[in-house]
């Protein structure tokens, strides 16, 4: 099964793809229903998402707030621009660390792929430097390691 891929376009775009073993409607739901997002969209172990607002309609807000047991926290806010459930969304987002990062425009598509879904996120980053640094940290290799561990677990 193809897992995460990452490629660049032009100076400022990163395209990430990932295949899931569930149909587009379910993967779309998992990306847009707060009760589901709060179960998986948690980042590193030890974090929870006590606040999750997700309004998948044009102009709808998103607000994700993460926290850990040490009292640390950060958040993401954004706005949906286009929503074509369960096929495609376009949204703008920024992280608050706590100062906001530059706006990142993300087009997400959920395409049927056999009996699963091919997720594609096209991220328009604010400038070439941000993208260069993102890629220079070996993002794709780290992700691949994680997914290979997952593959091994499923193979058992």
């Amino acid at each position, binding site marked *: 099964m193809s897992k*995460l891929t990452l490629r660049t376009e032009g100076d400022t775009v990163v395209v990430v793809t*990932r295949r*899931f*073993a*569930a149909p587009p409607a*379910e*993967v779309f739901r*998992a990306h847009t229903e707060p009760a*589901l997002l709060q*179960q*998986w*969209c*948690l*980042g*590193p*172990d030890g*974090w929870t998402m006590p606040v999750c607002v997700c309004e998948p309609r044009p102009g709808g807000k998103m607000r994700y707030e993460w926290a850990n047991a040490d009292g640390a926290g950060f958040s993401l806010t954004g706005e949906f621009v286009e929503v074509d459930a369960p096929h495609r969304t376009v949204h703008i987002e920024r992280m608050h*660390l706590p*100062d906001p*990062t*530059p706006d990142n425009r993300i087009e997400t598509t959920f395409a049927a792929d056999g*009996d699963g879904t091919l997720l594609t996120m096209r991220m328009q980053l604010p*400038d*070439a*430097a*941000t993208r*260069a*640094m*993102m890629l220079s*940290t070996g*993002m794709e290799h*780290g*992700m691949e*390691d*994680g*997914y290979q*561990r*997952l593959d091994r677990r499923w193979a058992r």
Partner: protein
Amino acid sequence: MNGLDTTLAALADPTRRAILARLARGEATVTQLCAPFPISQPAISRHLRVLEEAGLIVRRVDGQRRPCRLAPDALGELDAYLAMLRKGMERSYERLDQLLAANPSRKERP
């Protein structure tokens, strides 16, 4: 601006990134850094000042020259931030796989 903003602002220029790429190969004088660029030495010096103020390079005094090199752990804060995002994505998708696999409606399918 906080540290991350300062770092990103300093990196948001192709000449400054090219200077950093050159310094990744080792220390260099201003004259050496100027050679590949069709711009003046004062312009290069301004870029070096931005990089120095962002903590990305350090300079030492060597007679009349002030050679530059990459600062140790120059991108530490940015690297930590991006590593957190990367690891976060990995773990999140693993959880989503498990969530999708646990969905009762999936188990009814052939």
